[in-house]
């Protein structure tokens, strides 16, 4: 009974955090993009800096008509937003938030994270195929090629850390960094750079937003979505933005490790700094072409990450 209660409480905590995170990040992204373009961004809705803009957006989105396009495959089309939201929720299970705060300390934490996030592709492809729309289908095809290509360097870039620590639990990886008083970003700088580029590509964000590419494909795979279903895609996107940043912090920046403040504050602080860098990159760089994207993934990131794994293994062997 206690296990059941704990599980329910954990689920409620995850959903609350997911909603709050999307709420804040949508506002922050609009604010940051505004300031980068010498604008203010949201300013009028609620409070001094338009902090309740997201609340107004949500009210608007919920009150919209639930529209299903005529030629859509009803089951695929309606299930797709939920399918893309589920992995975004599941990954919170293994994130080590504090020294003892982790919802479920799986012994294959990193593998769990990688395998669950690759489910996002299924949601995207269901949306693209089910919409019965050429733009949505092209967007979904691109997302498929992109996510598949970048999954490999993303996982390979984390293997250097796994070799160095000898564990797949995220809590164990943080503990190793705390023990040696050294964040892995310094010895594993190549791994971190590859990880960060690949994670931006996994998130389908500019400069790798070919799957959405509003100037070419309207909105890519969610062209036909509106209202609450579109909100679910947006929530999944912003949740994934936070969780990949949190994974980067866990693997390379010492997770909850830091002086004075409690662990979870450090964890959130570092994660949101990485999220900020992601937003900053989004509003700086233009979109790459599909061939440049494939070149970068297969001809640069893949060999570099393999070399990083080999180099780390050799160093640890001869040391």
């Amino acid at each position, binding site marked *: 009974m206690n296990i059941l209660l704990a599980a329910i409480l954990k689920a409620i905590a995850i959903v609350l955090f997911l909603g709050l995170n999307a709420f804040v990040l949508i506002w922050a992204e609009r604010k*940051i993009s*505004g*300031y*980068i*373009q*010498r*604008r*203010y961004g949201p*300013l009028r809705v609620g409070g001094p800096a338009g902090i309740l803009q997201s609340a107004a957006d949500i009210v608007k989105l919920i009150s919209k008509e639930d529209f299903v396009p005529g030629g859509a495959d009803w089951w695929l089309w309606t299930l797709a937003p939920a399918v893309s939201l589920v992995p975004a929720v599941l990954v919170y299970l293994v994130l080590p938030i504090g020294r003892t705060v982790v919802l479920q300390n799986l012994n294959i934490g990193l593998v769990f994270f990688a395998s669950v996030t690759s489910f996002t592709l299924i949601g995207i492809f269901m949306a693209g195929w089910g919409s019965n729309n050429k733009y949505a289908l092209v967007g979904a095809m691109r997302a498929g090629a992109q996510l598949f290509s970048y999954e490999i360097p993303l996982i390979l870039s984390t293997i250097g850390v796994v070799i160095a620590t000898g564990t797949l639990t995220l809590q164990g990886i943080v503990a190793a960094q705390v023990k040696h008083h050294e964040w892995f970003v310094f010895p594993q700088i190549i791994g971190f750079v590859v990880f960060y580029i690949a994670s931006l590509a996994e998130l389908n964000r500019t400069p790798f937003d070919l799957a959405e590419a509003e100037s070419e494909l309207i909105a890519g795979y969610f062209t036909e979505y509106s209202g609450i279903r579109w909100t679910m895609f947006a929530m999944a996107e912003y949740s994934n933005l936070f969780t990949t940043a949190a994974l980067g912090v866990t693997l390379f920046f010492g997770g909850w490790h830091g002086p004075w403040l409690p662990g979870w504050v450090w964890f959130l602080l570092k994660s949101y700094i990485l999220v900020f860098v992601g937003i*900053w*990159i989004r*509003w*700086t*760089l233009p979109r790459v072409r599909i061939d440049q994207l494939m070149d970068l993934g297969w001809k640069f990131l893949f060999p570099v990450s393999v070399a990083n794994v080999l180099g780390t293994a050799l160093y640890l062997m001869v040391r």
Partner: protein
Amino acid sequence: MALWERLWNTGKSMVVGHAITLREMLHKPVTVCYPEEKPPFEHGSRSVPVLKVNEESGLLNCVSCGLCERSCPPSCIEIVQAVGADGKKKPWPETFQLDLSHCMVCNLCIEACPFDALEMADVVELSSYQVQDLIFDKDQLAELWKTSKAVRVAGGEQI
């Protein structure tokens, strides 16, 4: 080595580009938050013709000659000359009506005026739900002139 050159160029342009966006982000935005802060008017901007008042006598400069009425292409000015108790016409307007809903802000009335009695105001917040509210009489036009002068002085213009 072409590869190293490309890598170097990529890294350099990434750093330069992100430095530019960060610098722009730390600047104050150029947006003017309109109802709270008002942008200064450009010199020579037009919004509505208003009646100037003589500073010393406090009377209108207008002598009711009717040249502006004739020069107005959409005929939005309507003047009735004052008639004294002796039955003679007097050199000031009894009524001076300007229908802003018809006015096209062409400046021709001001060019026609020989007595420097009309001027383009710098007042723009004149919208209304009733068309009748856009018909201004001479007192309202003189009042608008004072408001417009205050706007210009606040904007730093020499009058």
